[in-house]
């Protein structure tokens, strides 16, 4: 333990040198999203500029703070100034900012997002005064975008492993009680009390017990786990150690999606650092607790988010679920007692052990204590990853944090393919496990996909069912065959081939699949259909009665037209049209032959995005 104590002192000094440095420090956000937005190129540009101006600066790669719409994000600290953040930094802007901040020492035209220091300087507000960040309460994401995820000292300097230290000083039962008192519930979506799960496993007698971290984030449209692991891997690992100590496990597994290569690299790096500092292996921190962790890459199957499927997959089998009981806490991996927790659940645990359960209970509402992360994406102005106390209303999340939608708001989808579409009139719903279930959706792992008037809810329901149908493992008939039938019905509706009587058939099939499927995947699969039928029935009726798609999405029900007055005759659409449906000489309005048009949308996009095109191609309903 002494080793960690002396290291902590050293790490605090190192951290102080980064936030109050002698020579400039530049932080660049390089999580997957930052890289996709161009962070690597920005880093290169910054290095070139430093060389050009003959400046000496330290570059630190950090994770993502969650304001993805501002990526790439760069922070700069110079002597005597707090850390200052800049958003949307492309190569050109990097050049400008380096010159202004480091050479001319003039911040006036650099449009900073805010500072991260203790007090304001030059009239720049604190970064957390940003409208997207202000309403948030950041516990799990505390370090995200702030520290270097590959630097052990950074984590240590920010109270890292103090939760584990406190846990190892107490008895395992006391740790479990503390988690029970905190009211923490599973953040993977089902909301089972974490402490109760741990106790059940603790009380099952067995020589070997396992702890599995479910990082197989399969919900399309959700990336909370990826971001946390890429930005702060030690938080998860500390949580795993605490959980393992509490339940008495000797071996842990992290089951992570292979689609997250950077997260895997950062986890492996963090595990290596733990080994170096005696935080894994025998007698951790000088205690009699011994534990090791293996990383297992998932091979791509949505159903493996279900715990019994995940166990089968770890055992090298097809990832198919089985009936419960026995629950994994009695008989799980290799037939031994096993606890499976989600990344966010485990990432929260160190904070509770650090600050106490009563501290954690001050956030959230009754029976739903603490915070939850959400990936706020879709047709929203400010997209990214957010963390809010449970009980926050959807309206606050979408309007205050997300800045609302550009076009008219239509629905928000929670819980991925297992969740539901929530309409505008229910936006005052508070986000809790129970209130979302009451309106037909689920909390899920935290995907919030916002839809506007350009989104067709029937098409969205078809999309989710198609996803589920492809991912159904095929073990039980209701899910295997029922979802297939539902997809076919939805396709007929989208193609304008179904009459009004199909809606009742669809609904009764949905209820059947919901009530008779074996596992959570099948039982929740009909939710997108049932909620859209419940809240957006008129839109379905338009499809089956008038063969009209109000959002102009369903391709069989729409047609493309060129508005002659607007067309600049630029021929861009002619060149992208794959079927030669658009013709016309340069500088003259083009013709679109509907009989040849396959509605691929290519011309529409070109006409909308290309600078010289006149936004002349419009989509209209066939019926109009």
């Amino acid at each position, binding site marked *: 333990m002494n080793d960690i104590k002396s290291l902590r002192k050293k790490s605090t000094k190192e951290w102080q040198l980064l936030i109050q440095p002698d020579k400039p420090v530049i932080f660049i956000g390089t999580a*997957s*999203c930052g*890289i*996709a*937005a161009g962070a690597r190129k920005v880093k290169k540009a910054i290095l070139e500029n430093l060389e050009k101006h003959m400046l000496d600066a330290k570059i630190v790669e950090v994770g993502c703070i969650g304001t*993805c*719409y501002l*990526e790439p994000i760069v922070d700069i600290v110079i002597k005597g100034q707090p850390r200052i953040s800049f958003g949307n930094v492309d190569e050109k802007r990097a050049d400008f900012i380096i010159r202004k901040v480091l050479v001319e020492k003039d911040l006036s035209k650099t449009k900073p997002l805010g500072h991260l220091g203790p007090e304001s300087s030059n009239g720049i507000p604190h970064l957390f005064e940003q409208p997207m960040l202000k309403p948030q309460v950041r516990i799990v994401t505390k370090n995200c975008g702030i520290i270097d995820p590959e630097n052990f000292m950074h984590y240590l300097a920010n109270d890292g492993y103090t939760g584990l230290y406190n846990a190892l000083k107490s008895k395992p039962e006391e740790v479990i009680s503390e988690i029970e008192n905190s009211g923490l519930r599973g953040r993977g979506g089902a909301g089972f009390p974490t402490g109760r799960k741990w106790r059940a496993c603790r009380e099952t007698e067995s020589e070997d017990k396992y702890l599995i971290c479910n990082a197989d*984030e*399969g*919900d*399309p*449209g*959700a*990336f909370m786990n*990826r*971001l946390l692991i890429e930005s702060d891997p030690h938080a998860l690992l500390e949580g795993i150690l605490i959980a393992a100590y509490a339940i008495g496990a000797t071996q842990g597994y992290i089951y992570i999606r*292979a*689609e*997250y*290569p950077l997260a895997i690299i950062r986890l492996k790096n963090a595990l290596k650092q733990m080994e170096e500092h005696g935080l894994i292996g025998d007698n951790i921190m000088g205690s009699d607790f011994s534990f090791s962790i293996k990383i*297992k*890459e998932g*091979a*791509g*199957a*949505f159903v493996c988010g279900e715990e019994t499927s995940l166990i089968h*997959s*770890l*055992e*090298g*089998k*097809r*990832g198919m679920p089985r009936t419960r009981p026995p629950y994994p806490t009695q008989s799980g991996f290799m037939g031994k007692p096993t606890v499976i927790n989600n990344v966010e659940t485990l990432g929260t645990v160190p904070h509770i052990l650090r600050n106490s359960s009563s501290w954690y209970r001050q956030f959230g509402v009754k029976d739903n204590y603490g915070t939850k992360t959400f*990936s*706020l*994406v*879709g*047709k929203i102005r400010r*997209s*990214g*990853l957010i963390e809010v106390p449970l009980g926050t209303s959807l309206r606050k999340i979408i309007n205050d944090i997300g800045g609302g939608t550009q076009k008219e708001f239509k629905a928000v989808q929670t819980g*991925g393919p297992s969740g539901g579409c929530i309409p505008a009139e229910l936006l005052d719903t508070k986000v809790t496990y129970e209130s979302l279930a009451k309106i037909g959706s689920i909390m899920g792992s935290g*995907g919030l*996909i916002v*839809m506007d008037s350009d*989104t067709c809810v029937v098409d*969205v329901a078809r999309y*989710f069912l198609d*996803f589920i149908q492809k*991912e159904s*493992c095929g073990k039980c008939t209701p899910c295997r065959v029922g979802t297939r039938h539902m997809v076919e019905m939805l396709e007929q509706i989208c193609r304008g081939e179904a009459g009004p009587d199909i809606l009742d058939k669809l609904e009764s099939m949905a209820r059947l699949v919901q009530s008779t499927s074996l596992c959570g995947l099948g039982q929740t699969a009909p939710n997108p259909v049932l909620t859209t039928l419940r809240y957006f029935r008129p839109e379905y009726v338009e499809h089956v009665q008038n063969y009209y798609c109000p959002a102009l999405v369903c391709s069989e029900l729409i047609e493309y037209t060129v508005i002659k007055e607007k067309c600049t005759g630029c021929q861009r659409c002619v060149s*992208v049209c*794959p079927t030669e449906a658009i013709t016309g000489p340069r500088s003259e309005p083009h013709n679109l032959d509907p009989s040849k048009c396959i509605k*691929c*949308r290519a011309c529409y*996009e*070109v006409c909308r*995005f*290309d600078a010289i095109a006149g936004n002349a191609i419009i989509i209209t309903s066939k019926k109009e």
Partner: protein
Amino acid sequence: MKQILRIASSFVQEQNKYLNMTKNEAAFAEIMEGHPQDESSLIPLLQKAQDEDGYISSFKVEEIADYLRITESEIYGVASFYSQFRFTPPGEHSISVCLGTACHVSGGETLLNTIERDLDVSPGECTSDGKFDLNRVACLGCCALAPVIKVDDEVYSKVNVIKLNDIMGLYE
């Protein structure tokens, strides 16, 4: 004389191929030995095999079956369950189009259709010249930058039909 040379060179080529194969085989045997000889090693070994060859070859399936003492059909049963594994060689470049929810509502499908048409290839297949293979992927986790596509290891964000053209130009 020329003919003899040609035969000799083809013989050398053949032999090199054989040598490479045995070298490959030996390397894989070594990799396998690092894994316990039970079913729990199956998925990691399949992943290693795919890392090496880009796909699961029937040759590797035989090797793994021998090592783990399970049948080849059991291996195919497991491998075909997971979307990560492919059984045909990949193209020179791999294109993945993200069709997660955020990408779906922002036009991921349009991108997929455009690539399918431009390259004359269906998802899960490889172009006839072996240059590109095309895949649908459920979510790459870059939802805030939707729609995204991935070519090899590079992720491109906020793609539209025009940007797609520029991106494809980089690989042609």
